């Protein structure tokens, strides 16, 4: 670790943190779990003047169900903490997705919201948040606002957040009954960056699909929804529509090739991960498990 020089602060409140960010005028970075930021500093890909560490701020590690019956988690909740909560509460989609994130050591340090703000197109939580209608509670010098996850990602590693804003928490709508949700991913090896991944939530009305939400990672510059797949599934006979719906994903993607997977490979495995996520989601919906 040999970063360029920077100053460091660990404020006690969100207000202090946003003030510090504001004062740095875009030349500061927020440090949460550090699993992306620290390697970037080590390679000197970033040279921020200051790091604002969130570790001392109380309440950011909380996970709870809020008044609107939505899952709410704070900015310092780690991948592992959410994984464990999900496992205790039978939330299979979250458990599936967490298993693909790096390795155990990465999951015990890295944070869910840190991953969202890093806006990596291959980030597993982004697909989950898109499928579960996620919303970010954002604090800035001018107060608080809410940003839907659909509006968060604006491009490769870029978000709609201002430089002095911090996402303090994320809320997710957990799947209701007769809804199943699942996640599937292809990566060079388990834990490597996803070449293609899909999160799917399927609600059943008898044997038919009442509604479906599908989100993709690794298949465009940002994590994104798959409207063609969702449209193809809605109202279809669940057990017969999956393969055709999965093929429709080609209309929803614009993959970018890199060292982890070429554009061609990403196109080839996109329908595979969509079909696998849908099949698991459907089985869970039929089994009455979320």
């Amino acid at each position, binding site marked *: 670790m040999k970063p360029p020089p920077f100053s460091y602060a660990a404020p006690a409140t969100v207000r202090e943190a946003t003030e510090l960010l504001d004062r740095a005028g875009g030349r500061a970075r927020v440090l949460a779990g550090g699993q992306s930021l620290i390697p970037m500093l080590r390679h000197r890909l970033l040279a921020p003047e200051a790091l604002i560490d969130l570790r001392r701020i109380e309440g950011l590690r909380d996970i709870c169900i809020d008044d609107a019956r939505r899952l709410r988690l704070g900015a310092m909740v780690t991948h592992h903490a959410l994984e464990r909560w999900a496992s205790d509460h039978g939330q299979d989609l979250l458990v599936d997705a967490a298993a693909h994130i790096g390795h155990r050591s990465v999951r015990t340090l890295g944070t869910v919201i840190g991953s969202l703000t890093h806006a990596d197109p291959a980030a597993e939580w982004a697909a989950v948040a898109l499928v579960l209608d996620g919303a970010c509670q954002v604090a800035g010098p001018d107060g608080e606002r809410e940003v839907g996850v659909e509006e968060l990602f604006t491009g490769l590693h870029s978000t709609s957040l201002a430089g002095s804003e911090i996402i303090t928490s994320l809320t997710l709508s957990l799947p209701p009954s007769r809804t199943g949700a699942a996640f599937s991913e292809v990566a*060079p090896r388990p834990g*490597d960056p996803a070449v293609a991944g899909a999160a799917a939530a399927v609600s059943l009305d008898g044997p038919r699909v009442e509604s479906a939400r599908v989100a993709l990672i690794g298949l465009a510059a940002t994590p994104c929804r798959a409207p063609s797949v969702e449209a193809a599934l809605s109202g279809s006979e669940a057990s017969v529509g999956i393969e055709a719906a999965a093929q429709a994903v080609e209309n929803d993607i614009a993959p970018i090739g890199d060292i982890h997977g070429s554009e061609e490979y990403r196109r080839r495995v996109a329908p595979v991960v969509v079909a696998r996520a849908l099949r698991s989601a459907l089985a869970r919906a039929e089994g009455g498990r979320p």
Partner: protein
Amino acid sequence: MRTGTVFGRPVLRREDSRFLKGKGVYVPDVRLPDTAEAVVKRSPHAHALIGHIDISEAATAPGVVAVITADDLTDTGVYRPYHKSPPAFANLLQPLEKGHDVPLLASGRVRRVGEPIALVVAEDRYLAEDAARLIRVDYEPLEPVLDPEAGLRPEAPVIHDELGDNVQSRVGVVVGDPEGAMAAADHTARFRFTIRRQIGSPLGPRAVLARFDPVEGLTVWSATQMQHLARKVIGGILGLAEDRIRVICPDMGGSFGGGVYYEDILIPYLARRVGRPVRWVEDRTENLVNARHARDQIHDVEVGFDSRGRLLALRDRILVDMGIANFYGLVVPYNTISHLKSQYRIDNYEAAATCVITNKTPNAPARGAGRVTAAFVIERVLERVARRLDLDPADVRRINLIPADAMPFDTGVPYRDGKPSVYDSGDFPAQLEMALEAIGYQEFRARQTRLRAEGRHVGIGIAAHMEGTGFGPPESAIVRVDGSGAVTILSGSNNHGQSHETTLAQVCADALGVDIETISLQDGDTALIRQGGGTFASRTAVTGSMAVAGAARKLRKKAIEMAAHLHGVEVDGLTVIGGVIRDGAGAWITTLAELARTTGDGERTGGRAGLEAMGSFASPTVTWASGTHVVTLEVDRDTGQVELERYVIAHDAGNIINPAVVEGQIVGGVVHGIGNALSEEAVYDEAGNLLTGSFVDYRLPRAIDVPPIEVHHQEFPSGLNDLGIKGCGEGGTVGAPAAIANAVEDALLPLDLRITEMPMQPEKLLRYIHQAEAAARQVQEA
């Protein structure tokens, strides 16, 4: 199994308590007062002319002690890589071997990304990194040569003017009448195999610390495999007598290949120049960009065979992508040629290798040097022959294996020392059956048929390997006993993970007649012993053990004579057991400790001073270890992902000093081979940048990627050393990629998939699958 008191027993690793508790001492742990830190400024271009280098800003940056470029190196000798084969070999095969100088710091021209251009020394690493970024270099980019075939074309830019073209070396061998046998064969087939570039990646990157004192001379701490060679090279280039240099190689986080690098010379140079200790610690990206690149061969193969699958003739034309320099002569290309025939009887054989200079990192020996590619080629050929004739791949091996009664077997191919390659002992057919039985070959075939009906793709693959071990210069050792009875081994070899503190102590305990608990090993330090070869080429179990055994036996004889003299008894019948000397009737005479306390008294001992002896050993030629690998796996046809199920290896390392250590070496080797087979690839872009500069993209196997690995031992003693030992450090790696490739093809039958490349990442495999599916559709439509 040959057993002594401890030889042959699975003694627990004596170095474990240090390593497992994090108490190892590595180069970066060595602290000297007033040490400055160095950072290397490297080329971002694969091929470019260098104009002006402006160091003015860097030289005056905070904390900077010195900045040097090629212009400052006026007082050093020339680094000219070794490029001459031993005369016995050169006279026999008349290879083409061309030499060229390698600048320590680029001058006028850079030839690869990562080539050192300047060094910055500062008070700490951060300041040195900051300053290195202030060095301005004017580049005029040139067209890079990144493909050996392109490098051979007449219009290709010549990378080293001294060579005249981009061919650095060429070597070939002919056995029998390959042309006639090929023409007469019932069947022939041609293949092109491509083995991509891979990197021998230790957990601990390299590091060098140097101190120069006008009285004491130069002391260098370096993570190298060969401290004595490093001393020689450093001395030659810096103009220092070898006795003025001490090279210490403390604990190392692995190595997997590699000898003496630029930094091993430049850091000592800097220490002398700035008059302070200077330290350089490589980071992971530097390691991946600059060190231990390996494999990278293209093979054009032609094979002739009969209808039973017997190989009648084999021809191979090999291109080696050498990178910008060949530091190891014909080691890699000729290892490939001399190991290609493997365990098989191939009477008519021709192979020729050409080493081509390209604008990449030098290609160097890494674990399984040259042999991984040889095994991949011959085993792929056998597998294709089996498919072509619709025969069981196991049967095709049975019919081609050298029978046990043909041992010792001369392959007809000279070894690198110019001596015949004679497989000294072994039973290859029994080894194959041992491996097949252990994995349950017939049962697997039945299960495979069942699973295929369910649409699942499981496969089994077989591959043999041969490994010429114990190569290289002589090894030496000193064994001494002190007045407390403590025994010390000083070895010229060095230990970077091979368990020498355990195995050499086992050899010593039996040869001297002491308890292993009383023995400790010191190695990796030129001050300990005058001559040492180092640890590479799976050699220390053979050469290091024999040197220790020689020293210990001499010492035992000396002790017995001393005891006889002191106590007025006959030498005959005296024994040394547990450090106690007894007479033939078992009566206590004295102890080694007591003798050691007496040795200062020359009058009493009859002039036999010092309870110490030296031994050395040079192997007459290599001794041949062998193995047969069988692996089962499942392929996901939709994604190209491979999941390994089980791995069995039957192995012959001759007499085994410590079965647990041998098993560890083999399992470690197989894991290395799994990475080579499935995930490790050094990828360059069209401009010659290495894209795989971290462990996120250079994909080493991890614990979760490795299936259960079973090791089964055969023990056919070598006749080339009286302990009967063969080496075992690399064989696990050698056969693994071939076995895995064969299993992948087997899993995807009845698709006629042809794997011609390693590694086989999921993306590549899925491309093969789509190609085979498209071909199958075409056949159907026709």
